[in-house]
């Protein structure tokens, strides 16, 4: 039943490795961009707040598929952005990461913003009473506490991101879902076995992440 695994015809581990790479690069990128967005949304400058809110509302309500197709079809093929990639494969990968970062960062931003809201008012008031500036209040006092309380929501975002990398199949990145589609077409007699293998792969990727980060979130949470 599982003999298609031994044929050497399909690079199963390679496909999942692309999935992992997409996840890691996008996770780092969206953590940075999402934190910046959250900073903008609580900043004293009205225009920055408006930009942050507008960006989040627009991008969060766009389907990820459309974001990625826009990156590939719009930025890549029509406007010929290459993001420094050399060949078709690396350009596609980079555009996919760009799209995933643009989309996932809105969820990171919203998580961090709700984390900021869990920090007691007194913390920021005390910081201001010491004469700290907005940037100091945010980076030295509020964000460190906020991050500790949003480990669990951010873990959920990371898991959603892992699952969302499959959407990159829509723009021809050779990750797990793309390989699964190909295998289902070629090995139609082993349909259930193929599905089981890929489902197992994703459970291996997502479940431990959730359990591990769930444990971490309990360890680092600020006891109040």
């Amino acid at each position, binding site marked *: 039943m599982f003999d298609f695994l031994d044929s050497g015809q399909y690079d199963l581990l390679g496909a999942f490795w692309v999935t992992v790479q997409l996840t890691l690069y996008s996770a780092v990128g969206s953590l940075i961009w999402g934190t910046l967005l959250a900073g903008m949304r609580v900043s004293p*400058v009205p*225009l920055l707040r408006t930009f942050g809110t507008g960006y989040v509302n627009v991008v969060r309500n766009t389907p990820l598929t459309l974001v990625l*197709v826009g990156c590939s079809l719009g930025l890549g093929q029509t406007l010929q952005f290459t993001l420094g990639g050399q060949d078709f494969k690396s350009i596609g990968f980079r555009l996919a990461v760009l799209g995933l970062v643009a989309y996932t960062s809105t969820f990171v931003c919203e998580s961090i913003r709700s984390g900021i809201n869990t920090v007691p008012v007194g913390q920021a008031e005390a910081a201001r009473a010491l004469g700290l500036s907005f940037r100091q209040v945010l980076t030295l006092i509020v964000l460190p506490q906020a991050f500790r309380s949003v480990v669990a929501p951010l873990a959920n975002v990371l898991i959603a991101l892992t*699952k969302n990398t*499959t959407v990159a199949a829509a723009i021809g990145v050779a990750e797990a879902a793309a390989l699964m589609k190909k295998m*289902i077409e070629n090995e139609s007699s082993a349909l259930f076995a193929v599905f089981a293998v890929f489902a197992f792969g994703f459970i291996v990727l997502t*479940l431990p992440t959730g359990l591990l980060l769930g444990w971490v979130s309990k360890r680092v949470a600020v006891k109040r």
Partner: protein
Amino acid sequence: MSATSVLYDAPGKRAKRRNVIYTVVFLVVFALAAWWILSVMADKNQLAAEKWSPFVKDSKVWTTYLLPGLGETIKAAALAIVIALPLGALLGIGRLSDHAWVRVPVGAVVEFFRSIPVLMMMIFAGALYVQFSNVSSDLRPLYAVVTGLVLYNSSVIAEVVRAGILTLPRGQTDAAKAIGMRKGQTMGYVLLPQAVTAMLPALVSQLVVIVKDTALGGAILGFADLLSQKDTIPANYGANTIATLVVIALLYIVLNFALTTFAGWLEKRLRGAKRSTGAVLGADDADQANAPGAPANASGA
């Protein structure tokens, strides 16, 4: 911390000047970025008037492509939520069962379908219909999309339902027991009706997720939804890819923004309602139900 303004003092003279400087710097950077994008677009001839004008001048673009596509998107999303709701309610209640032989398998099913990407379920469902049914090939994409969405979302809704029931105060169950209700009656007459109200905002938020996920069918399974018009319109109106993508994006954003706003309004209204326990599941709880592993915990009340 409710109001974010506790993060900074009311701006004085210097702070006001600094804010103006930041505003100007941001505007300059933003304008440069916009100018750069627009010049690249002009370079590739994407700003030409005839590429954008069909969307305002030619009603055929709307009646032949965009609106039917939007209709298919809404149809798939509506079918998916209508089928997934009762299934999800059953799974959610099953997971709260007192009998381990119901609770454990249902829990496994729910966790399984929450752990794997919805796209994989759509591809799998599509292949299933090819092999084991005689659904005609032009209906098959819709079937595949709806099946994939139902499999995934019924387990998400199961978690929402479970969290909705758990978020109700214990006194509700105790009171129902005290007047001699059986387990089924407690669930049917006391817990479920209140849980349904409490989880309405979360369900509307989930509907946004469903609408967004239908686009997968358009890009990968050949479903003739709104997103798939990214190919048909540029093919008929002179390669206006960028213009088409922008219009399609606007339609999705308007639809989803309306749903998101409605969910927010519902949540606020339900939280303020006097005649309830005040238990509400909002968008955050829906987000949580979408992630496997960590159970959606009751954060309402």
